[in-house]
């Protein structure tokens, strides 16, 4: 039994309380997700997210309230006025709107959060007490002021908490666990506020019949609330994941579009530019803003390429992809070579956009030009130098020849397939072994390949080639490739040989001349010395006899005149005899022929000493019976030449001449203590004396070595093999 003024004992159905708390948690979780979307979207999308989010969240909070009220059981029937209920829903949506708006600001200041919380708290408190006012029951409702105040504080704290949490979440997507925890915290706070406010109300029994117009039973409201929240949460889940997917794809495509190395232009179906990427701006010099709404033809197509551009656009519009190369211009009118790709972007049934992609290939074109030029030059150079190049892949045993190499071998590329084996067939049989050896050596040691080879042309002509090559190895050091060049050196080889032969002939001729001169000199010297000398001697003796006897034939006066004249004649004959001796020994010292080289050297040394005043020490320790006339002559002449040089240039005061046999060789060493011959003087072409000495040494098959130490004299060493 109830009676007026009697407080009604209320009870809670705890299953429904739990349901209400679950709804609060789900609503809070959705609200946090929505705040993220609001934050990351822009423009109209942002506004619609804000509104949708506010509606969803408001509905959630509202449902929680009514579920919570459903869980409260009174001993009398309770109904709800639907108009007041609707008002409470609007209040809830308003609260959500404020919350989302504040939380989606760029920066969260505490004052702003505080203001937002006050608005939210007011709306929530409004929601609750308006909802309470929608109750239609035959009872009075009284409020405990202290608990009401506590519920307001809870509302405020819950609002502030939710704002800060939402804000802290909005930049970090993907922290599912933290998001769930926050949702539970917020849901718990909302529930706490609700049940505190419920506790503030005490219902007194009254006889007044409730105004039941527009009233609904609480159970139908509760069912509606639960349905709404469930649908809402599912919807938001699907929506957010869809939006996430779209955003991810867009970000991926955006990066691809912007970061690609090639200039990419997105056009609409009218060929107007919608968007260009950074590479386009870099390559063509236009900023993205300058390009939007313009046509490609206006910006980067030079006049000569207008037709081509129209054709490309038409082709691409009709479906097939365009892949071409052409010339385009930059903003500053400079031209560049580009690779061009044009494609249409279509969805089934129609074209929606087009892409134009440009790659700057100026550098490649330049390299191509240079390469073409270099190749041309190489061909010319090979032709001029008669050098052919080859490349031998050791792994596949394929051999490549340049055109010039074919020419050198007298073959045509169409008719002859150059393999290593085919090459060996063309090698002169006598050279085969050395060629194989050279190649094997290079492969084994990786040394430079270098050999001469004779090859035979189809017409039988033999050519001489000089081939050089390099071995390439792989990462394991195994030879994989040989490449190099071969030069036709036939002419220069022949010329060399001819030159060598003619040099030899010249030398032989000069040697013969030398010999002939020597012979002639010997003959004349002998004639002068012996014949003329004998006659002069006889003449002198006769004159002496005449001088002695004439006193018997003439008188005293005549005698002294005659005697004087005869004495003068004798003196003259003496003079002539002296001259004959001098001239003949200059032509050819007879001592060399009569007494041999050692005696001649001794004599020459004494002559030199008395003529120059330079001390000449000799060690003639060679058995000159071993020498033939030619050898003796050459060695003697070399000594004479050396002594002449010393006299003229050395400024020496002493000369040592040593001639001995060392290891089957005659060694003649002429050492002076003069200023020392310099390298330049030795190498100088005008030092004809030295050339003459060298020639004579060469004739003997010997060598001559001249070493000078500045200030330390000069040593000339002649070595002649004696025993062949």
């Amino acid at each position: 039994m109830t009676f007026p003024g009697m407080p009604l004992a209320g009870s809670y159905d705890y299953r429904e309380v739990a349901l209400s708390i679950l709804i609060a948690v789900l609503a809070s979780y959705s609200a946090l997700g929505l705040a993220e979307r609001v934050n990351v979207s822009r423009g109209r999308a942002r506004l619609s997210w804000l509104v949708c989010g506010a509606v969803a969240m408001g509905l959630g909070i509202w449902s929680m309230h009514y579920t919570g009220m459903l869980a409260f059981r009174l001993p009398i029937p309770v109904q709800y006025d639907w108009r007041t209920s609707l008002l409470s829903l609007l209040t809830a949506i308003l609260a959500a709107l404020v919350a989302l708006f504040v939380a989606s600001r760029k920066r969260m200041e505490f004052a702003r959060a505080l203001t937002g919380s006050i608005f939210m708290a007011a709306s929530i408190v409004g929601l609750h007490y308006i909802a309470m006012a929608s109750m239609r029951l035959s009872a009075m409702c009284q409020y405990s002021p202290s608990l009401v105040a506590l519920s307001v504080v809870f509302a405020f704290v819950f609002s502030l908490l939710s704002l800060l949490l939402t804000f802290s979440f909005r930049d970090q997507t993907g922290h599912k666990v933290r998001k769930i925890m926050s949702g539970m915290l917020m849901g718990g706070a909302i529930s706490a506020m609700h049940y505190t406010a419920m506790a503030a109300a005490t219902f007194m029994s009254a006889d007044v019949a409730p105004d039941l117009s527009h009233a609904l039973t609480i159970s139908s409201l509760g069912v509606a609330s639960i349905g709404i929240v469930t649908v809402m949460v599912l919807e938001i889940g699907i929506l957010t994941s869809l939006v996430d997917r779209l955003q991810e794809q867009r970000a991926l495509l955006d990066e691809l579009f912007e970061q690609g190395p090639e200039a990419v232009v997105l056009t609409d179906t009218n060929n107007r530019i919608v968007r260009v990427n950074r590479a386009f701006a870099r390559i063509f010099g236009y900023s993205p803003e300058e390009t939007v709404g313009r046509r490609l033809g206006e910006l980067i197509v030079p006049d000569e390429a207008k037709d081509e551009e129209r054709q490309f656009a038409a082709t691409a519009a009709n479906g097939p992809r365009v892949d071409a190369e052409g010339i385009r211009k930059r903003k500053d009118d400079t031209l560049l070579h580009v690779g061009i790709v044009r494609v249409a972007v279509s969805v089934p049934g129609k074209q929606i956009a087009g892409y134009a992609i440009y790659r700057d290939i100026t550098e490649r074109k330049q390299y191509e030009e240079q390469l073409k030029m270099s190749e041309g030059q190489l061909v010319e150079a090979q032709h001029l130098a008669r050098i052919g190049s080859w490349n031998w892949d050791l792994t596949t045993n394929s051999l490549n020849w340049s055109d010039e190499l074919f020419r050198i071998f007298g073959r045509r590329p169409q008719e002859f397939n150059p393999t290593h084996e085919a090459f060996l067939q063309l090698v002169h049989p006598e050279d085969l072994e050395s060629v194989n050896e050279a190649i094997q050596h290079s492969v084994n040691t990786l040394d430079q390949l270098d050999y001469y080879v004779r090859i035979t042309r189809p017409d039988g002509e033999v050519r001489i080639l000089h081939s050089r090559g390099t071995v390439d190895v792989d990462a394991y050091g195994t030879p994989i490739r040989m490449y190099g060049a071969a030069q036709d050196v036939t002419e220069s080889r022949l010329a060399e040989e001819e030159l060598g032969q003619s040099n030899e002939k010249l030398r032989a001729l000069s040697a013969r001349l030398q010999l002939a001169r020597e012979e002639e000199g010997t003959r004349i010297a002998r004639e002068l010395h012996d014949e003329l000398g004998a006659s002069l001697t006889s003449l002198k003796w006769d004159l002496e006899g005449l001088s002695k006897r004439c006193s018997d034939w003439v008188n005293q006066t005549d005698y002294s005149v005659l005697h004087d004249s005869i004495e003068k004649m004798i003196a003259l004959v003496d003079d002539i005899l002296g001259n004959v001796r001098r001239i003949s020994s200059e032509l050819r010292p007879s001592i060399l022929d009569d007494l041999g080289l050692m005696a001649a050297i001794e004599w020459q040394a004494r002559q030199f000493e008395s003529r120059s005043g330079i001390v000449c020490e000799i060690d003639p320790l060679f058995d000159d019976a071993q020498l033939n006339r030619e050898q003796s002559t050459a060695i003697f002449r070399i000594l004479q030449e050396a002594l002449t040089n010393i006299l003229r240039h050395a400024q020496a005061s002493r000369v040592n001449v040593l001639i001995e046999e060392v290891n089957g060789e005659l060694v003649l060493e002429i050492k002076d203590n003069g200023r020392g011959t310099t390298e330049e003087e030795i190498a100088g072409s005008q030092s004809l004396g030295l050339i003459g000495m060298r020639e004579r040494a060469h004739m003997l098959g010997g060598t001559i070595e001249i070493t000078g130490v500045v200030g330390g004299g000069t040593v000339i060493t002649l070595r002649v093999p004696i025993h062949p």
Partner: protein
Amino acid sequence: MARILIVDDHAVVRDGVRRIFEQQEDETTVGEASTAQEAVQLVRGANWDAVVLDISLGGRSGLDFIKELKQIRPKLPVLILSMHSEEQYARRAFKAGAAGYITKDNSRTELVAAINKVIAGGRYVSPALAEKLVFDIERGTEGPPHELLSDREFEVMCLIASGKTVTEISEELSLSDKTISTYRARILEKMDMKTNAELTHYTIKNKLVD
């Protein structure tokens, strides 16, 4: 009455010599030969007091011919009458056994004096050549005898003095045995010694080796 054989392939010289001696007071017989072969026959066939020989006897070394003549008649004095005024000829002629050496530019008086001197068993050399030969000897008369040696000769002398054999020395100096023997002979000649022992004694006395 002297009998002189003149061997020279030049007729003018033979005539000249003949005239000189025919104009002499004492009756001198002059025989003539123009080749070595002829001369050998004449020497074998008769007694001569002296032979006057041209050292450049056409086609044949006069020095060898001296030896040949000396073999046939060791006592027969040979006077070389030569165009060559080089002392090398003279030295070698004396070595080969000539009694005198006179150059053709000497006066007939001197030629006669030379002939007389060699017939008398003396030796003769033309004044100008004598001067050169004396100078050669003088070259070696100042200071101790080892200063006459060349550097290489001195080296070889020290090695000989230290008791090394010719073969050892030739190996040490990379020279042939023959060259070392030649050195040894020259050293002994310059030092006026006969044996290795004398050399060793000399080097020790003069503190030339350790």
